[in-house]
């Protein structure tokens, strides 16, 4: 037995390295293809002087990928820090807003789902309004949230707290809807089993309904993770927050005509932040969810 394990161990490690290498190769492959498509379209557009309405392909509308990347490593202004340092700080600031918003929204969404799952009446009464809340554009809500919330915020949360609220607004909805579905997904026989043990509603919730809902919850958290980043960036605009990626986007947007690559570079960093949030949720899911393979999304 011991020898069998000893023999298997190196080959398992080898397998893991192989799998990781294939993953990395696949990622690089996809990036190379995207880069190729971008540059091919740019070359084609410039060679044929392609016009799509008022859109014309040139270095201003569609800069080279390598120009966008290299902008990151140039000073953001004369004698200033490198652009990547500036954007990194902005991304951290936005991440703080998005993370708080995500946490608030996910908690609130989960709590709503738990309450609605226990009352068909409340579910019938409230669900339409929860759905309606998401049909109102975030751009219409954001300024109001800032006006209402900001004066009541303690000093440490001034401005960015309001932005987190806007991010939470985008986050809670998928969590509430999916968790509600997940809480109802428990096997009817399993519910009978719990009743046969005369278990309380509370035990049924925590020992059956919530664990059964986790695959649904995590599917929602993945959507919400990226939505919270988008919500934070959008929220920064009406809140006049300058320190985050939203501020950076607004700023570089004004200088787009002379330095288009900076806005593109900012978008790249914003996308990377969304991906980081997404991957954190994936990692948490792997650590938490213990289900048969067919139940894991």
């Amino acid at each position: 037995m011991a020898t069998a394990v000893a023999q298997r161990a190196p080959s398992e490690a080898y397998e893991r390295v192989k799998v990781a290498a294939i993953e990395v190769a696949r990622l690089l492959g996809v990036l190379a293809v995207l880069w190729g498509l971008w540059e091919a379209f740019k070359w084609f557009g410039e060679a044929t002087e392609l016009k799509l309405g008022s859109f014309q392909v040139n270095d201003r509308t569609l800069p080279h990928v390598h120009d966008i990347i290299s902008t990151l490593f140039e000073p953001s202004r004369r004698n200033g820090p490198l652009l990547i340092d500036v954007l990194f700080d902005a991304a951290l600031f936005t991440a703080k807003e998005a993370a708080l918003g995500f946490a608030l929204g996910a908690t609130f969404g989960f709590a709503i789902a738990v309450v609605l799952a226990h009352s068909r009446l409340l579910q019938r009464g409230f669900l339409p309004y929860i759905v309606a809340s998401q049909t109102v554009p975030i751009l219409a809500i954001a300024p109001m949230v800032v006006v209402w919330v900001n004066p009541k915020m303690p000093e440490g949360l001034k401005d960015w707290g309001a932005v987190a609220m806007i991010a939470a607004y985008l986050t809670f909805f998928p969590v509430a809807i999916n968790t509600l579905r997940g809480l109802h997904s428990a096997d009817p026989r399993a519910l009978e089993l719990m009743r046969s043990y005369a278990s309380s509603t509370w035990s049924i919730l925590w020992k059956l309904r919530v664990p059964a809902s986790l695959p649904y919850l995590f599917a929602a958290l993945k959507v919400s993770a990226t939505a919270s980043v988008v919500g934070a960036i959008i929220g920064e605009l009406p809140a006049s927050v300058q320190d985050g990626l939203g501020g950076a986007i607004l700023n570089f947007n004004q200088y787009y005509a002379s330095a288009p690559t900076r806005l593109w570079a900012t978008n790249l960093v914003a996308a990377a932040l969304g991906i980081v949030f997404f991957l954190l949720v994936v990692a948490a899911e792997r650590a938490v969810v213990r289900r048969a393979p067919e139940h894991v999304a």
Partner: protein
Amino acid sequence: MSAQTVVSLGGVSKEFGKGGVVALQDVDLEIGPGEFVSLIGPSGCGKSTLLRIVGDLIQPSTGNVVVNGKSAHQARVDRDYGIVFQDAVLFDWRTVARNIGLPLELAGWNREKRRGRVQEMLELVELTGFESHHPWQLSGGMQQRVSIARALSFDPPLLLMDEPFGALDEMTRERLNLELLRIWQASGSTVVFVTHSISEAVFLSTRVVVMSPRPGRITGIVDVDLPQPRSFRTREEPRFAELVRDVRRALRRGGGFEAEEDDHEEERLIVAEEGL
């Protein structure tokens, strides 16, 4: 009702919905301690419904249900019975050990006590060494053994089984039949066992209760006088064949063989009733 009765049913009827399907009509049945009673009949005869009425998972429309000398509700609250379904109904996110320990956890046993009992149960169902496996890593037969261990973990005087081996292949089924008999004799509990299979009912039981559909009622009771302990040989004895014939005849008398088969009707009604 004598003090010796574990389950006592008097005039139990069950109607699903108002003026709807009559699942059970005027069922009287007494089950004594240590008995192994099978309920057999075609689909729609109300045998699963009857089992759930005993377990207080469904309320009867009329009639009296006494379990362990108290009301069915009180018996459920006191955790007087363990239940096993056709599917093992194990919780994916729990290991085998934690699945078996679930009822103990709900009853407030501490970790130390739970661990000891779970080990005993693993030995009883011969799954020692599988405690940290997850359900999906086990075969169907092993999953059902875990489910039996879970039902017996808190040592209930009564074990309710709803076609527990119905989804398993014939070979696994016969092996688990023997294992169940061994467990039953070791634990000394009373078993109420719902099944579709005539030979399974005869092989396992001390008494076979034959039911017929529309409306569901008891149409015959066959006392099984085969000697204990039973073995693979039991099925080959002439007396076994005679008893199988008796049960088959009782089923035919009740119209069991003419009944239309709708395997899921009863289940649908039960789920609708419970509002699950």
